């Protein structure tokens, strides 16, 4: 029986292929996941690939805010992520999430900067004795 490949090993391989411009790896990966019945892990695998990419200098950041992010703020956020993660290339996905109430949340593959009102409220709740 073939040894079960860890998600991190798969992600490392996929990230390297993507960095080399070989996008066909996604087809291979999909076929492999179906073959070994691990399609449920796809979300976690994507996170792992993003993590492996970040280690190579390509950071995919997810920006969530209660209202539309202005161009100036977006530029500042990219600059912040570039500096904080020492990334060569920062790719940003932004979305509106009204449940955050206010402020902005930046998520990189393995870290988070949460300056939302929702986070402050959760912290207050946790402090409640």
């Amino acid at each position, binding site marked *: 029986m073939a040894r079960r490949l860890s998600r991190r090993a798969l992600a490392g391989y996929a990230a390297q292929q993507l960095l080399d411009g070989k996008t066909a790896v996604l087809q291979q990966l999909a076929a492999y996941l179906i073959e070994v019945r691990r399609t449920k892990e796809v979300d976690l695998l994507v996170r792992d690939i993003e993590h492996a990419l970040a280690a190579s200098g390509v950071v995919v950041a997810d920006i969530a805010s209660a209202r539309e992010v202005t161009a100036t703020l977006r530029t500042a956020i990219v600059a912040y992520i570039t500096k*904080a993660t020492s990334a060569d290339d920062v790719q940003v996905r932004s979305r509106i999430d009204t449940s955050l109430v206010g402020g902005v949340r930046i998520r990189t593959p393995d870290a*988070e900067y949460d300056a939302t009102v929702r986070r402050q409220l959760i912290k207050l709740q946790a402090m409640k004795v």
Partner: protein
Amino acid sequence: MTNLSVTELSRDLRDAIAQLETSEGLESVGIVTRVGDGVAWVHGLYSAGYSEVLEIESDNGTVEAFALNLNEDEIGAVLLGNDSDVKAGARVSLKGETLSVPVGPELLGRVVDPLGRPLDGGPVIKTKHRGLVEREAVGVMGRKSVHEPLMTGIMSIDAMFPIGRGQRELIIGDRQTGKTAIAIDTMINQAKQKTGVVNVYVAIGQKLSKIARLVDRLKEEGVMDQTIIVATGPSDPASLLYLAPYAGTAMGEYFRDNSEHALIIYDDLTKHAVAYRQMSLLLRRPPGREAYPGDVFYLHSRLLERSAKLSDDLGAGSLTALPIIETQAGDISAYIPTNVISITDGQIFLETDLFYQGIRPAISAGLSVSRVGGAAQTKAVKSVGGNLKLGLSQFRELASFAQFGSDLDDATKSQIDRGRRLTELLKQAQYQPMGIWEQYVSIHAVTSGLFDTVDPERVKDAQTALLTKLWSDHKTEMRTLNKGDKPSDDVLALIDAAITSVAKGFEG
């Protein structure tokens, strides 16, 4: 050789500092992938350390957990709170510290859970210090041989299996044989003899009603003021049961490290091993013998190794451990009992048969041993207790032969009679620990042969009369004897006179 530029080094260091300061806001996070049975599996947090505390976001604030399985793809974390509050997809962050509990004198007199939260309805405990739950034991050079006695107040233990400060002495036996009673009496004796030893009682999965009764009793006896109780009940999560002895040890270590003396009782480590087995199986660790994980020996060895007598350089404090193990049908060769027997410095084995014969404490003279306590025994008790163990073992063997009703020679008869008296003498009611002078006088009365005329059925009455007489007539001498030194010839003469006088009133 590489040429180093100091100017560049300085610039690089400043850049690194600037970068770290910038990334301060970025917090390492992961997500819960699945949760159940008190265990959460977390994706991400690749920088998490073993035993590091994680904070899991929930609808009711946060739930803490600690990382026990660091796998390539995920972390297995054991929850310290209710698992129904944790949902898959919940955000997990690192707390940046390993588990610690409040320690210090502020805990004295309190009943707490393994995280130091009060369970006695009292105010929140605010201490100046915190102690690490998992901590390395003191090294070789930081230790000293056990040499100071830790009197239990139980005559048969102090005379035959003496315990020293810093020793680990196992109390082992079937259920309902008086294991906890020995531990409680030892705690009470510390208060009665004013030894200054702090008691830490760790209840692992004990019935809450039993803990409540214990607390009431300790309060009645005036012991609670120098006692900390770490309590976990059967309904608590396995993680808390697992942590309880380590948390209690951290609390005891505070006193040990501050040149004081502490006594810790783990009641009991069988339940602790069972809780750890539950956690390990849920964490998918491979089961071994009796389904316990491979590191179940290390679980207890690293815990008990923290009990020690410190060297003078480290303040000469001590932490004495009395772990308790429950056996099934007297089988001391089971997995956990043999493990703990090999870790500890001796064991007190309690037998069901003796218990039901009315010999209480039901200590087996043959199977019990104290490997290092002899050096710590007081001179007074040592002088009379030297041959006690051998004599008692011989008596029990001879007594079994005597049952066949064969004619016995006078020497054997006398040995059996003395053994019967000794057995009666060593019976001791619960909550009545005895001082050194009481133990010395009682044992001396029988082993010297001065009580040979006393009816074996009336030995306890004769003992009470003797102790009362000596205390009322020779209080000063008895107080001196209570310090532990061997009595002078004058004192011995007056003790002998008192024994002879009392023996006349109880002749059989």
